[in-house]
């Protein structure tokens, strides 16, 4: 800030600029990725570690199990993942085919799953993915029973953290011939998916829909229900009632290919608070660990994974971070970032289709910047790092299985985080709101 000049707290320069942009253009901003505002998150928690009253495990000698079984409530063929870190649903269309293939390669190398998105299943993705979760979205773009049977699990998407209550969006510049063909849409139109499913409305209907999906797939596939973090206690309860094998809870830090900035920043609640409520719901129903909980939205490090699991998640899912491992926002092709009016580290221009690093694009020249084999190795490396960090923290807390991490291992650094996560404020036994 310039010396002796006092900025308006209510109208900082960024707000003034946005008011003037809106006044000139008369339309909201659309952008990609997730919330940029600061919200309470896993950084506001710390692990206590072992000491006199807790016994640690040897970091380099004693095993620490990371495998997890998803979907054993009703499905004949639950998925056994080697690590509790999955790749979140991102559409072919939002991402290019090379990016989807790379995600599949990296996830498969680590024995974990990747997920389709609002655009159907590509051969590249199925071919490169050991475990592929097939999303059933309101649009039903590309949905067909053959792909349903090829999937390893089915994820009914009710909402996503970046925009609970909103449908998908893919602007015309990314609707090329192949994307349009898969979605049965004209090329070049601005595709705005429905926000509600076309053939069911509430949880009672969804229960019947799930029955149909199970009938079509011989009751083999685990059925996930994905919800954006809106009312997670009730949404989780209703998902269990509807017959989910797995609940996927996506917090407000979760990303999107494109939606209104006002939606991304102002709808939904942070992952930290949402996770606690979802776990409470499962425990009250005596379904914790019986219906598995996958949490997503702002997971970046093994510490985030470990904290989510300590709070009660069975696994996590990563989307934006996986894109970054593919090179999203990398310090490459800087001139192309500048052409978009941005810089590496700040870019959220997925919606333009002009991704400088070839991840979120359908432009064949830009896509060449992402080699799916090399990028797949980076995903593998990243997942390896997260897993090692997760194991390190689990061992430090005396756990031989990462799912044995528990809230008692945590303390909060802020009052807000203590209230949301319902773990004591560090150095006290105080949990706000708990008598």
């Amino acid at each position, binding site marked *: 800030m310039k010396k002796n000049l006092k900025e308006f707290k209510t109208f900082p320069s960024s707000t003034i600029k946005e008011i003037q942009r809106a006044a000139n*253009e*008369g*339309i909201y901003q659309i952008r990609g990725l997730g919330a940029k505002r600061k919200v309470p998150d896993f950084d506001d928690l710390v692990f206590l570690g072992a000491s006199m009253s807790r016994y640690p495990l040897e970091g380099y000698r004693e095993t620490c199990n990371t495998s997890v079984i998803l979907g054993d409530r009703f499905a004949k063929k639950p998925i056994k993942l080697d690590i509790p870190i999955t790749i979140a649903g991102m559409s072919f269309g939002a991402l290019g085919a090379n990016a989807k293939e790379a995600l599949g390669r990296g996830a498969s190398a680590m024995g974990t799953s990747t997920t389709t998105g609002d655009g159907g299943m590509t051969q590249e993705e199925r071919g490169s993915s050991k475990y592929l979760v097939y999303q059933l979205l309101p*649009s*039903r773009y590309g*949905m*067909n*029973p053959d792909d*349903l049977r090829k999937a390893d699990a089915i994820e009914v998407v009710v909402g996503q953290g970046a925009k609970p209550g909103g449908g998908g969006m893919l602007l*015309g510049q990314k609707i090329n011939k192949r994307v349009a063909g898969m*979605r*049965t*849409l*004209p090329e*070049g*139109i*601005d595709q*705005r998916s*429905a926000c509600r499913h*076309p*053939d*069911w409305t509430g949880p009672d*209907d969804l229960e*019947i*829909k799930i*029955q*149909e999906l199970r*009938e*079509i*797939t*011989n*009751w083999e596939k685990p059925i996930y229900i994905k919800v954006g973090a809106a009312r997670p206690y009730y949404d989780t309860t209703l998902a269990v009632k509807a017959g989910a094998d797995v609940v996927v809870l996506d917090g407000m830090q979760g990303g999107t290919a494109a939606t209104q900035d006002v939606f991304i920043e102002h709808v939904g609640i942070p992952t930290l608070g949402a996770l606690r409520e979802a776990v409470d719901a499962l425990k009250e129903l005596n379904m914790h660990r019986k219906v598995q909980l996958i949490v997503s939205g702002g997971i970046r490090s093994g510490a985030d994974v470990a904290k989510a699991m300590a709070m009660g998640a069975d696994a996590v899912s990563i989307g934006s971070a996986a894109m970054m491992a593919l090179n999203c926002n990398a310090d490459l092709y800087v001139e192309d970032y500048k052409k978009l009016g941005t810089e590496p580290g700040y870019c959220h221009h997925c919606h333009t289709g002009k991704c400088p690093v070839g991840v979120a694009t359908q432009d064949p020249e830009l896509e060449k910047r992402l080699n799916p084999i090399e990028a797949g190795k980076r995903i593998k490396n990243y997942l390896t790092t997260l897993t090692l960090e997760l194991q390190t923290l689990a061992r430090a807390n005396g756990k031989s299985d990462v799912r044995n991490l528990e809230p008692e291992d945590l303390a909060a650094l802020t009052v807000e985080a203590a209230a949301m996560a319902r773990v004591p404020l560090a150095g006290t036994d105080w949990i706000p709101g708990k008598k």
Partner: protein
Amino acid sequence: MNFDLNKKTLREVNQHLQNFDRKKNTRKFEISNPQGQHAICAGLKDDIDITIKGHTGYYCAGMNQKATVTVHGNVGTGVAENMMSGKIIVKGNASQSAGATGHGGALIIEGDASSRCGISMKGIDIVVKGSVGHMSAFMAQKGNLVVMGDADADLGDSIYEAKIFVKGKVKSLGADCVEKKMDKKNIDELTKLFKKLNISEDPKKFKRYGSSRNLYNFKIDNVGAY
């Protein structure tokens, strides 16, 4: 071959129909006592012929491939949802979202269909001999919705490239849906469809509706249309 849903479970019946032995089994089946059960005949994938004697619940013949299913009764929500191919004939009335997101094949409803008939349809042909409820053909992408009776409010709201033909009255059209000229090409197409589905109707009595394509790309000038 007859299946009595009073005596066999839905799973047993569907499993048999989904995995029948092409060499040994007959291709004709009858299901009695459906009693409104859901997902009857869901996920069929062979060229077989099934008659259901009675009313069905939600998602009858969901995601059908190749099979022909005739329901001698009424059907619940989402009959023939996401159908890929084959033919579904409903002798009675259909509840909401009939033929939702269907990619191909034909759905013939001899009675009325409730709201959102043909929602997000992606290539299916739907013929309703009675009337359809509100918001039918909402976001319809491809295929034909033919209505011999009337259509309730907001027909074809946010429609893409699907075609709607209505013989009776249309209460109102939804956003971006307009009446279009019924030219010789359209009459020929409808004639061909009726012939294929063995329907006796005069295509010239129908009006055609489709997308004005004004909302395909978001323009601020169109914001009032939503």
